């Protein structure tokens, strides 16, 4: 068809579409006269239009939103690295981006992991990593992901370090747990296969150290593969034989990202052996059965306390011999004392195999039922926050959990005050801040600051005297603000703040969870601060309780005149923080940066981070940066000098509502 012809056809088509159906035939005859082709083409298009219905009416973006979101404009696609050509991005994790790639020399598909820049730039770490990966690649076991190659390629500007492994067409156990489709039989089978892989590795002297559902994949044919073997070790910064507690927490948190699967000895920073993997496998087994892990907490700190101090809640109410034996296996894997745990994975395996044999012999009924699902009603009624539930049900469940957590934690903290103080703070904590002298106060603040950083997932550096003095000045100021009642300064207004925060907690927890961001503490602080602070506008235009730029607030649905309204700003801030932290990914620990970005605009987080990463002495630690402000540029220095101490001071006050005696739970522990 030529453009001219199309014009003719279109003219007839437009004419006919303007008419009601009954008038169309005669119009076509008149308009086309003897031109049968014209008539046929116009008729075809007319009929096509009538049939088209919703065709292309919904915009492509709406129809393909998921694609748009997941599909990065990835310059790596099509790129050649060594003998591999990248086809598709499969995902990203702490250890870099993973691609589906074609091995052009062998025409097979592989998964290619490209190590991130920051990782590669640390020569010592890279050496350890390479050594470890090579050791693992020597392992040859069906349940261990095969490493094809650990390599690097030099480009014009930079070097690319990569690992090529076999490509698994299947799902992670994380996904399987989320889908709630695992049968009891499958759960036992997966555990046995993971165990077999671990046995082979342990025999070669390799400890996994990071067994978790994300690191286990099941192929469609049922074969299970353990990934990222032994790699966790090489990501550790230093040997952690003898370090103090607060440091152990954050080191561990930084190393592993998820702390829920960590053994107590790992959490303590002690040296580990193969029994640490037994513990982690026990946690995974528990989670596959229950749909949630045995040790949970709103923050890493809370989870770690739970791992160290609490027994895993028993799984089953309804008893059968089979379930009893599974419970026993879990109990023996989750012995906090390594000496009482299974000594080898083989022991655990033979118990698991025994359960499987009995199960296959038909001792239990209904093996094909999705297990966690049928179990859910038995276990306990507060574990309902699954994504298929409607929102309000989730809210209800979260609220129930909150209340329960609050009660449990209150009891727990009362009972274990000595322990908690030992772990988290100095002995000075037992003394009222108001009764301390200035030196004691500074000491107290130094300890609290470390503790709060750890709770936020940041790696605390030692604050310098100037920083400590700045924080102290603000804590002192807060206390004068609240010194109306003689006996319990601050309690009344903090309780009020607390009460104001509670309704938002489910929302805050959801917004963080949706983005898989573990830290929730930051959001309470402005709530706490709002009890003391008047709502002001800063010279550079940041306004209100959270000192957002109006521009930023607008993005999150809050008008400039609403910025002093805590009810409006809190949800906005929750989303903002969660967004920024999700954006930071690997650097999500850098909470300080996020908080500073309130009044700098959101793009600033990204840009600053990029800039800082390029510095030779960059550490993922902004408390340290605050302490060594000579490393910072002028504007960052100015801002951190104001906001960081205020933030910490508010946190110190807010975390210990009843004048630091820890008789009520920290706000941050209430989030889940």
């Amino acid at each position, binding site marked *: 068809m030529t453009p001219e012809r199309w014009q003719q056809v279109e003219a007839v088509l437009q004419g006919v579409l303007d008419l009601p159906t009954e008038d169309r035939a005669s119009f076509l005859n008149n308009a086309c006269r003897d031109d049968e082709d014209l008539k046929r083409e116009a008729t075809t298009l007319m009929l096509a239009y009538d049939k088209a219905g919703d065709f292309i009416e919904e915009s492509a973006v709406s129809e393909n939103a998921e694609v748009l979101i997941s599909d990065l404009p990835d310059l790596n696609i099509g790129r050649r690295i060594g003998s591999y050509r990248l086809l598709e991005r499969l995902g990203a994790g702490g250890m870099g981006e993973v691609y589906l790639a074609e091995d052009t020399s062998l025409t097979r598909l592989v998964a290619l992991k490209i190590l991130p820049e920051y990782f590669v730039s640390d020569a010592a770490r890279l050496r350890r990593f390479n050594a470890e990966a090579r050791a693992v690649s020597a392992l040859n076991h069906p349940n261990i992901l095969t490493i094809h190659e650990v390599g690097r390629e030099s480009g014009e500007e930079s070097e690319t370090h990569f690992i090529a492994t076999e490509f698994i067409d299947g799902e992670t156990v994380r996904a399987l747990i989320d889908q709630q489709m695992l049968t009891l039989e499958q759960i036992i089978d997966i555990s046995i296969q993971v165990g077999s892989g671990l046995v082979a590795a342990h025999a070669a002297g390799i400890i996994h150290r990071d067994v978790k559902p994300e690191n286990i994949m099941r192929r469609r044919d049922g074969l299970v593969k353990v990934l990222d073997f032994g790699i966790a070790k090489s990501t550790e910064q230093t040997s952690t034989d003898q370090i103090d507690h607060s440091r152990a927490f954050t080191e561990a948190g930084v190393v592993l990202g998820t702390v829920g699967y960590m053994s107590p000895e790992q959490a303590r920073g002690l040296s580990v052996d193969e029994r640490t993997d037994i513990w982690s496998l026990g946690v995974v087994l528990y989670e596959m059965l229950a749909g949630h892990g045995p040790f949970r907490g709103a923050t890493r700190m809370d989870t770690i306390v739970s791992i160290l101090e609490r027994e895993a809640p028993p799984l089953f109410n309804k008893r059968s011999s089979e379930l009893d034996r599974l419970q026993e296996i879990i109990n023996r894997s989750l012995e906090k004392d390594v000496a009482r745990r299974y000594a080898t994975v083989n022991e655990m395996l033979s118990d698991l195999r025994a359960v499987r044999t009995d199960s296959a012999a038909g001792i239990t009924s209904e093996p094909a039922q999705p297990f966690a699902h049928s179990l859910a009603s038995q276990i306990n009624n507060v574990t309902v926050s699954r994504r298929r539930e409607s929102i309000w049900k989730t809210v209800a469940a979260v609220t129930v959990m909150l209340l329960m957590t609050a009660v449990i934690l209150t009891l727990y903290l009362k009972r274990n005050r000595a322990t908690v103080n030992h772990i988290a703070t100095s002995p000075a904590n037992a003394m009222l801040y108001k009764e301390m002298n200035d030196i004691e106060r500074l000491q107290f603040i130094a300890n609290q600051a470390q503790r709060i950083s750890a709770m936020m997932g940041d790696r605390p550096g030692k604050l310098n005297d100037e920083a400590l003095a700045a924080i102290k000045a603000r804590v002192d100021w807060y206390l004068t603000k609240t010194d109306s009642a003689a006996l319990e300064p601050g309690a009344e207004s903090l309780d009020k703040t607390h009460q104001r925060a509670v309704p938002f907690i489910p929302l805050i927890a959801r917004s963080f969870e949706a983005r898989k961001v573990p830290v929730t503490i930051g959001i309470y602080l402005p709530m706490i601060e709002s009890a003391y602070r008047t709502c002001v506008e800063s010279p550079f235009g940041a306004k209100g309780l959270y000192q957002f730029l109006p521009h930023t607030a607008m993005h999150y649905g809050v008008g400039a005149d609403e910025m002093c309204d805590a009810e409006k700003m809190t949800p906005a801030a929750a989303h903002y923080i969660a967004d920024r932290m999700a954006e930071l990914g690997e650097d999500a620990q850098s909470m300080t940066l996020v908080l500073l970005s309130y009044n700098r605009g959101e793009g600033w987080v*990204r840009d600053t981070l990029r800039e800082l990463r390029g510095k030779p002495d960059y550490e993922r630690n902004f408390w340290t940066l605050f302490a060594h402000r000579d490393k910072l540029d002028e504007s960052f220095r100015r801002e951190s000098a104001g906001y960081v101490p205020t933030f910490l001071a508010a946190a110190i006050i807010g975390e210990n509502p009843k004048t630091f005696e820890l008789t009520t739970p920290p706000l941050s522990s209430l989030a889940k």
Partner: protein
Amino acid sequence: MTTSGETKAVDQVTELLLEWRQGNDTALQRLTPLVYGEIRRIAHRFMQRERDGHTLQTTALVNEAYLRLLGQPQVDWNSRAHFFGVTAQVMRHVLVDHARRRQYLKRGGDAERVPLEDVALMTNERASELIALDEALDQLAELDPRKARVIELRYFGGLSLEETATILDVSVMTVRRDWRAAKAWLYNAVRNE
């Protein structure tokens, strides 16, 4: 009030738009990742907020991307129009590219080895149809460039009739008529063959 980083990005986008308008095609190539990155992030947030299957409001999305990349709402309709033109092209490119890769993967190995995430994101039929639509749209552009633009702006760019009319500097009635003729033509080309 904006940071130096943001200011720089805004300047960059404005400048690239200008270059592109003046006929520099490489400017579009450089704009694409900027625009797409922004749209993707905003889309992500929208989806997080509306997790229970609400559809994405494309217009809102593009408008937000515009605000973020070009700063405050500007009265400069020209640059606004060009920006929307870019976003429509970017989205077309991204979606069709994804569809092609999906087809490639399907051909390249046995179907079972296509990664799972991909399966969930776009069905094979959807991918073939998008590719067919893209090709048909190219043909339509040769016959009737304005109608192809209308489809691109509305279908890929998510714009309303009114916005499309403003950008193409024609009446709403014209857009409406272009739309229905082009829709008939494309449906015939994609589905009737």
